[in-house]
């Protein structure tokens, strides 16, 4: 269990680094898929089966295919080398280091963060997570589901308008 956690966490983090480091956009996109697969494995380790599957289907499947499609459609070339941009790297390094230090400080503060993985109660009603999420989605959260539907419609219309040859 712990070994698998480290394996998939390393996969997610290395994939993420690949996105930042790779010059070629196609390699970056494939690193991103790798990172999402690792992340989905972590979700499944947290007993979030539906969400892990969605992560693979929607992110690694649909969204990254869209990215690759656009990268190849636009024929984006690898970024050309430039003179070492000291200001950019120093600024970005400072911001990121500050963020990591902040995260470590917050995690070291104690509280509930050191909790070990609690065991699930197998005899709880509706033990399948898909079942429970479906009930919540179409029960308690029916209005947000409708609103998200409208959002998707608006996004579709927006994309069609943006893709027209001439904007009027």
């Amino acid at each position, binding site marked *: *269990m*712990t070994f698998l*956690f480290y394996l998939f*966490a390393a996969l*997610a983090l290395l994939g*993420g680094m690949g*996105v*930042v480091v790779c010059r070629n956009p196609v390699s*970056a996109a494939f690193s991103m898929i790798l*990172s999402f697969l690792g*992340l989905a494995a*972590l*979700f499944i380790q*947290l007993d*979030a089966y*539906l*969400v892990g599957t*969605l*992560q693979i289907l*929607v*992110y690694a499947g649909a*969204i990254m295919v*869209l*990215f690759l499609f*656009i*990268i190849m459609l*636009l024929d*984006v070339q690898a*970024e050309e080398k430039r003179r070492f941009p000291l200001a*950019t790297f120093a*600024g*970005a*390094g400072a911001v*990121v280091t500050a*963020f*990591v230090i902040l*995260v470590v400080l917050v*995690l070291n503060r104690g509280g*509930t963060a*050191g*909790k*070990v*993985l*609690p065991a699930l*109660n197998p005899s*709880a009603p509706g*033990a399948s*997570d898909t079942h*429970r*999420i479906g009930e*919540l989605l179409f029960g308690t959260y029916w209005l*947000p589901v409708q609103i*998200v539907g409208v*959002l*998707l419609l608006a*996004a*579709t219309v*927006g*994309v069609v308008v943006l*893709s027209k040859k001439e904007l009027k």
Partner: protein
Amino acid sequence: MELTLNHFLLVSGLLFAIGLAGVLVRRNLLIIFMCLELMLAAANLTLVAFSRFHLVEGQPAYDAHVLLFFIITVAAAEVAVGLAIIVALFRTKETTDVTKVNTMKY
């Protein structure tokens, strides 16, 4: 060693930091957009971890999973619109390099 909430939160924080570094350092608009998605996914891990460690009647707090469902949907819509904007930008400027997109109007 037992897995604790800290393990997952640290991975999530590091992944977010990597995405942040990418947004700040890279110049290709498409890759900046991908790093943005990475940050969003890292935040999702925090949500799932907290839901798993906060049991309600022996089950994870499933409201977090519902929220995650909405986040994934909104992210998909955002990617569709964002990529359409990038394509429109490429059509007028012939580039996806953010350092070359520096005028509001030509």
